[in-house]
Structures are given as C-alpha cells and as structure tokens.
C-alpha cells in the first residue's frame, strides 16, 4: 500500500531533522536549525497526507474507517501529534532546543510502527466494539495528551541537562538551551495541556465503554494505568501550584509521569484486558 511506503520514508525524514537539530546544538549555527525546521515541516505535511491517503485507501477496500484503530495506526498518529505540538512550541517560543528530542521520539514511534516485525501495517476492518464515533474522540484526545506529556518529558530532560551548565565553561550546546525558569514553565504548561487532554481521553473512553460494554469503568488494566498516569500528574500539579515545587524535583516528577504514559501505551499490552493489541 502506498501510504505505508510513504510513512516508512517519513521515518527517515524525521531522523534527518533529528540529525540537523542535534548538529545545530553541537555546532551552534542557526542555518542548521532552519534546515531542521524545514525538513520537519516537510515531513509533517507529507505525514498528514499519508494518513489521509490511508483513510481513503481503507474506503477503497470497502472497510472504510479513520486510521486510528490498531497499534500501527496509533504509533503513526502519535508521531504526528508529537511533531505538530513541537512545531507549535517552536513557532510560539522561537526556540529549537527541544527539536532534537521531539524528532527523536517521533522517529522512534515511526520506526517501531514501520519496521517492527510484530506490528501489522495492514488496514484491518473494525470489529463491532470499535464501530463508534467515540473511537475518534477517544484516540485523538488521548494521543494529543500523550504527545504533550512526551514534550514535557523532553523539556524535563533538557532541564536536567541545562543544570549541568557551568558559567565558566562556554559550552555551546548548553547555551542554546533556554533558561532554567523558561524550561520549568514550559514543562508545566505542557503537563497542564496533557492533563486536560488525558482527562478528556479517559472521559470519552468511559462514555464509549458505557455504550459498548455497559459499564463506564471496569478497572481494566489500560483504564487503571491511564488513571494512575492521571493521578501522578494530578499530584505534580498540586505540588507545583500549592506547594511551590519547581525545578529539579518537578523535572523528575514529569519524567516519572512520562514513564507511566509509556507503560499505559505499551506495557499494558502484556497484561490482559480489552485494550491489548496483542490479539490483533
């Protein structure tokens, strides 16, 4: 299928932009950063095009549905949301320093989806339980939430790296990273966006589960892990807003939160439940 071929090429486009973002950090030339942005933007547009193409192809197969229904499609969409959110941040802040991490995460998701032998990239028909409009709302909100947490994770890593900064050593790499306070604030804002979207994802999932299985909450491992993630970030927000936690502690908190996100996404497949993609 054409879309999977295009998407497998996009994987390398993101790798190239990761390379340029990294080079920009090491060498410190803004031209490299500009190239990186254009490559990423180009990849992003073609990426969106390929997703739409996949959508159209599914209709040609007579099993038309939005390409958000299996692990492969979710990975492709996850990478896309990460790049979209990253480009928004870059545009708003005019800073490219987390570009390397964002494109690396997107590259990882794309490569896993496209090249893992265990993941099927075929367009599969929707089983009855998935035939719901809530599927779209649930997947879109959840993955934008995941992407926001991924960027918060990238920012937190940057924070911890930046802390190594020593004013005496003129380290170009670290100079390009924004001030600690900016990183801290951006992390926090990303967490807020992710938290809100994750809440929406859980709620849309609950509405859907209620109409499909009769119960809005069944303590299925995926549900429970998304709640665990939500609780961890809720604790983070309380720590920051009410207890004034900042800096290193918050960065570590946000990294721990992202590990929960990753477990919710991948780890749960090894536990039994309604969401396990393993059977498909």
């Amino acid at each position, binding site marked *: 299928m054409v879309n999977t071929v295009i998407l497998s090429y996009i994987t390398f486009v993101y790798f190239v932009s990761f390379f340029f973002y990294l080079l920009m950090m090491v060498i410190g030339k803004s031209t490299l950063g500009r190239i990186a942005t254009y490559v990423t933007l180009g990849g992003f547009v073609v990426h969106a095009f390929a997703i739409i193409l996949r959508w159209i192809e599914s209709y040609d197969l007579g099993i038309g549905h939005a390409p958000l229904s299996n692990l492969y499609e979710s990975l492709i969409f996850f990478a896309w949301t990460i790049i979209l959110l990253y480009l928004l941040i870059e545009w708003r802040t005019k800073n490219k320093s987390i570009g390397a991490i964002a494109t690396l995460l997107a590259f990882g998701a794309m490569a896993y989806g496209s090249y893992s032998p265990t993941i099927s990239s075929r367009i599969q028909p929707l089983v009855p339980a998935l035939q719901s409009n809530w599927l779209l709302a649930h997947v879109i909100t959840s993955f934008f939430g995941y992407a926001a947490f991924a960027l918060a994770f990238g920012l937190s890593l940057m924070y911890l790296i930046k802390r190594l900064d020593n004013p005496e050593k003129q380290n170009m790499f670290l100079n390009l990273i924004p001030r600690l306070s900016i990183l801290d604030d951006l992390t926090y*804002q990303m967490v807020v966006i992710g938290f809100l979207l994750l809440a929406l994802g859980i709620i849309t999932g609950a509405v859907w589960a209620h109409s499909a299985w009769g119960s809005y909450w069944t303590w299925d491992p995926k549900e429970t892990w998304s709640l665990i993630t939500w609780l961890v970030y809720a604790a983070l927000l309380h720590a920051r807003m009410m207890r004034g936690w900042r800096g290193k502690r918050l960065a570590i908190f946000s990294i721990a939160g992202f590990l929960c996100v990753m477990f919710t996404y991948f780890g749960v497949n090894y536990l039994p439940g309604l969401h396990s993609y393993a059977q498909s």
Partner: protein
Amino acid sequence: MIKSPLDCFFPQIKLQFQKNSAIKKQNFEVLWGLTLYLIQVAFFRCEESGDTGCKWDLFFSLGDMAASKTTNNSNLIWNFFCSVNLTIFLLIILAITSIVGTVIPQQDSAVEFAQRLNPGFFRLFSFLQLFDMYHSIWFRILIGLLALNLIVCSIDRFPAIWKLFKTSPRPDRSKPFENIPPDWSFSVKGNIKDTSTPLHELLDGQFKKIKSKETDKGLYFYGEKGRYSYFGFYLVHLSILFIILGGILGSFFGFEAYVNIPEGDYVNSVRLRAGGAPVKLGFEIRCEKFFVEFYKDGTPKEYRSDITILADGKEALKGNLTVNNPITFRGITFYQSSYGTIPGNKARIGISRQGPNPSDVSITMELRKPVPLPGNDGNIHLADFRPDFMRLGPAVLLVVRPPEGEEKKLWIFRDHDSIRERFPEIFEKFPGLNPAAFEPYFFSLDQMESKNYTGLQVNKDPGVSFIWIGCFMMIVGFFIAFFQSHRGIFVRAQPTKKGIRISVAGRSNKNPVGLERELDKLSQKLRNLFMT
C-alpha cells in the same frame, strides 16, 4: 533544616541498598524508604526551592495559588485534612496501590491464579482483599480520605477565595500606572470632559463592573473580567465528588447482570455477575432473532439481536440491539455482549439394521419422544443433547428399550468416523459410547438441530448521570481554571498643558502575557478612538 524530602531520604535509601545489597530484603527496604518519604511529604512542610516568579509564558501561566491559604485553625484533625501534602500523598498512594490490581488477576480471573499461589501468600492476598482490590475496604477508605481531604481543603480556602472574589480596587489608584510601557500611554488634544462618555462606551462593551471616579488629578476608570475564574478549581474538585458519588450510587442501587436468550425464547429474570439469586426484571424480554455478520477476511462485522420487550402483557418496545447501541427500558439497559449456540430439541438419527433383514432409515426425533425400532425390537428415545460431549463434538444420549431386558443408554457422536480415526479402540472399549452396542442395530447422529442464543449484558446504574455531569463539570472547570484569568483594567485620563494624557494599566491573577496583549489592544483602540 530539612532541605528537601528527596535529598533527605534518597541517601538513606542508598545506604540501605549498600548494606543489604546481597539480601532479598532489598525490595522491602526500597518500599519502606519510599513510604517514609511519602509520609514525610504528607506531614512535614518542605522548603520551597527553585526560581519562582517566572514571567515567561507560552499559552498561559498561573500565579502562585499557595498565597491563598489564610485561615489558621488550631484544630489538629482539621489541619491534618486541609494539608495539600496529604493530597499529594493520597494521590501517589492511590496511583501506586492501583498498580497491584493490574498485575494480580482480579475477580473471576483470579481463581486460576489463586490456585497456583502457595497457601501463605494466598492467605495474605485474601486478607488484603487483593483479588478484588478496587472494591476492597482499604482502597475505598483511601478514596474516602481523598474526598474528605478535598472537602476540607475547599472549605478551608473558601473565605480567602471569596475575599478575592468580592474585593474590588478603587479606580483612582496611581500605583498600577507605575512602570507601564510607553505604548500604553499617549497624549491627545481636547477637553477632559469630552473623554468620559466615549471611554465609558468603549469599556462597557468589553469589561464588567465598570467604575469611574473624577478627581482633580483626572478621570479614572476601572473595569474587569474573569472574576469567576477563581472558582474554576472549585468546579474541578466538585466534579471529582460528583464522580465518586455516582460510583457509590451505582454500587449501592445498581446491578451488573447477564442473560442468555435463545432465539424465539424469552426471559423475565437475569443473573447477577456477582452471583446470587436471579433478579426479576418486572417485564419480559424476547429474542426474536440473532444475526452475526462477517467481513471477507472472517473478522466479525456486526452482532445484532432483534428483541421485543413485553410489559404488563403488552408489547412495549421492539428494537435492534447491536454493540455500541444498547436499549434501555425502565432504567435497565441491555447491551449486546456475546452469542453462542445451544442444541435444540430435534435430531436426525440414522438407524441401520444388519443381518437377515437389513434396513437403513433416517428419522427425525424429538427430545423424550419414543420411536419404535424398525424391526419391532422395542423403542428408542433421546434423553439428552450435548453440543460438545467429552470434547469430542456434538452428541445425543440415546436410550433403547427392548421388549425384554434392561434398557441401554448410548452416547451417539456426530463425528463418529473422525473420532474412530483419532482413538481407534474407543468404541469397543466403552460400550456406553458404542453405536453398535445394541445388536444388530447401528445408530448414527446425522444432524443435530441447534439454536442461536444471544448473550446480553444487563445493567442498572442510577449513578451514571452523576458521572456524566461530573465529567462535564471537570472539563468546564479545567478550562476556567487554566485558561481564564481575573483581569482588572485601569484607564486614566489626565489633563496636561497641551490636552489630555490617556494611560492604561492592568493586573491579572495569572497569565501576565495575555494581560499584556489585552492592554496592547486596548491602548490601540483608545488611540483610534481619540486620534481620528
């Protein structure tokens, strides 16, 4: 002085690691260290560190809410429950304990796991209710504590928030105008008396609670918006209580049940998932027909039951039940959940008679209706139908009553030939399975009628509307709390030698960048108003 709980306890954990590195106890020590740390977070204040007051911003940013804590209640229990550290502690503890139930199989699926456990662990797990931990007493207590913590915190902070909500500054303050950027101040020609009405009109459209004051120094205006944003977090927290309440209502006044209805059959009671006596519905539900449709590759496409509900002797509701499209009647909702086949009560039995008068007939028999054997050797009837007997496929229990002697019971398999291939001697070894055991006859099961049944999930949950209201409130609350801010705008018109100097200034409880943008826009509008 405690610098930070992390710094305080991490060395300790490290130390314990070094001491016990060879011992298996290690895991326990880490857990213990973590628990101590969490307790410390909950019950001791930690020093606030790091750079605060960052004014940099992407989409929005929040002010420090920590300042809004004012009441000084001396009640120890009250103070315990209004601590945010307790909130953080409870959230983390809930998160950590929730993991347990995703690793240990829960409820029905726990049985197999429990059998493999050694007795000591089994007793421990049962004592801790780990096989159904999300409904255990201790987990409920944790949720209850969180709810209590939330309520006490809300009450505790209410007076301070209310004060913020109620107070409004005097419009003729000069402090806000200190250090304003040059863009927000400009001079125009004219009389100060003529500025009052257009200023009022402009502000009226955009702000609430407009106040103005005229002094000898000039004309002052104050307007604001987003005062309600102080209650955004209240809405979020109230939504959590709604959701908990919905859950409680559901577990007390609702039920989760299931029922299997064969096509053409009806039921008036359902079985609880938790076990126990069947629940009467108070009406009848009939399954007219069950359909299952497949895609070309064999994936199921649709499960559908055509059902009719009969209440008080009348047909009350007729409809199609599919996955994702449940049907609700009198507060009880039916969901398409599973399907299967059960044997009907008819089967085609082949009877062949060997020997001097050979015959070979095939007759349709009904359950428990005797049929004479062709050679007047008594009669036969079917006593049982099994869709899968001894894991060897469909079978019927055939009872032969000869005119004299004892009756014989034989299980007749449909897949006789393939079973013989797999287990060559089976029919000879077990006379009860041998279709040739009643000589000189040989019986075969040619066809067994089967019926589809539809499996329905049957739920009643009066708490569910509270859940949806709670969810809706939560989202609205988030938007108010995170994206709305209380902004106050000051406008001043001062008489100067040449004319009038108009300045704008403002303040906001969060999102300073948003405020700046708003003031930029406002000063531009004022310029357009007075300069043209």
